[in-house]
């Protein structure tokens, strides 16, 4: 039973390996770096039609067009950033999964930091307050002694 499971697993793994190889064969590259750039870009660029999919993952017509364009641009010797800029020129910031820092999006970076700082501030504030309460002066000591003596006296009398 166990051996059969293992064989099944191996077969599945082999099949998936051959599938991914078939997908890679479709695109020809001059160098390993170009292939790497292409793979990174198709994962980072977002399909404008099937939103929430990158262009490597999507079967939409526009995703295929964008993949082909990325390939052409890489073959022409463009850098990764140049390809990204080319796409943003046409499809807007939406097309890239990394949003740019603009006045409208700055809150995405600032808000987490502000929350962390506020949280720490709150903790420090509370600790200081608690420390203040624990201050024990000589007067407090005298008062305590007095109270104890009073109480002891009361106990003796009763």
């Amino acid at each position, binding site marked *: 039973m166990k051996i059969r499971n293992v064989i099944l697993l191996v077969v599945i793994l082999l099949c998936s390996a051959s599938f991914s190889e078939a997908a890679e064969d479709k695109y020809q590259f001059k160098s390993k770096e170009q292939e790497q750039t292409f793979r990174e870009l198709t994962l980072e660029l977002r399909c*404008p*039609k099937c*939103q929430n999919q990158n262009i490597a993952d999507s079967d*939409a*017509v*526009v995703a*295929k*067009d*964008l993949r082909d*364009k990325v390939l052409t641009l890489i073959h022409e010797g463009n850098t990764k950033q140049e390809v990204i800029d080319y796409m*943003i*020129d*046409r*499809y*807007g*910031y*939406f097309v890239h999964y990394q949003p740019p820092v603009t006045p409208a999006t700055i809150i995405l970076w600032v808000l987490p930091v502000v929350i962390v700082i506020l949280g720490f501030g709150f903790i420090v504030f509370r600790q200081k307050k608690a420390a203040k309460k624990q201050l024990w002066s000589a007067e407090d000591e005298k008062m305590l002694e007095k109270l104890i003596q009073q109480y002891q006296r009361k106990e003796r009398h009763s």
Partner: protein
Amino acid sequence: MNRKILGFLPFLIFVFLCVFLYQGLFGNPRELQTGRLGQAMPSFNLPDLMSDQKRWTEKDLLGDVYLMNVWGTWCPTCIAELGYLTRLREQGVKIVGLYYEQAYDPDFGDHFDIHALREEVQMMLSRAGNPYQFNILDLERTLALDLGVSGAPETFLVNKQGTILLHHTGDINQRVWRNKFLPVLEELRSEN
């Protein structure tokens, strides 16, 4: 006093989140804007859909305010908006079609026949109304990519100088026309 404000803080955060999420419910994520807004129409040199000899470039379109409507007979929403667009044409709006073809691509179609396509387009336009002055055939979807088109139907409003003023994703109907296109058109008219 301080304590009272602190006590209200969770409530304020709650209200803020409610407003934020409520807006998200009714926002349309497909309403995308091209990166080309405010820029010139990209240069192109493409054939006419109906004739092999005729070619169009972006310079042929200068001097008129016009709509460029991206469409295809394979797209039901495009067919549905033909009627309304035809009424706009009758009101004097110049509409140019950018024909977005899929079947030409071996990944999406088995065969492509330009004559069959012309017949189909002619039949469709005679039935549903023909809003187009002419149609530009973008077989490789190069102009579509340069314009930031993600599908069909999409419509661009371009002024006399060839600057892209508006980009609309989805069909054009009376509501969209009144709210989105008319204000910009009226502004253009008052400038002249």
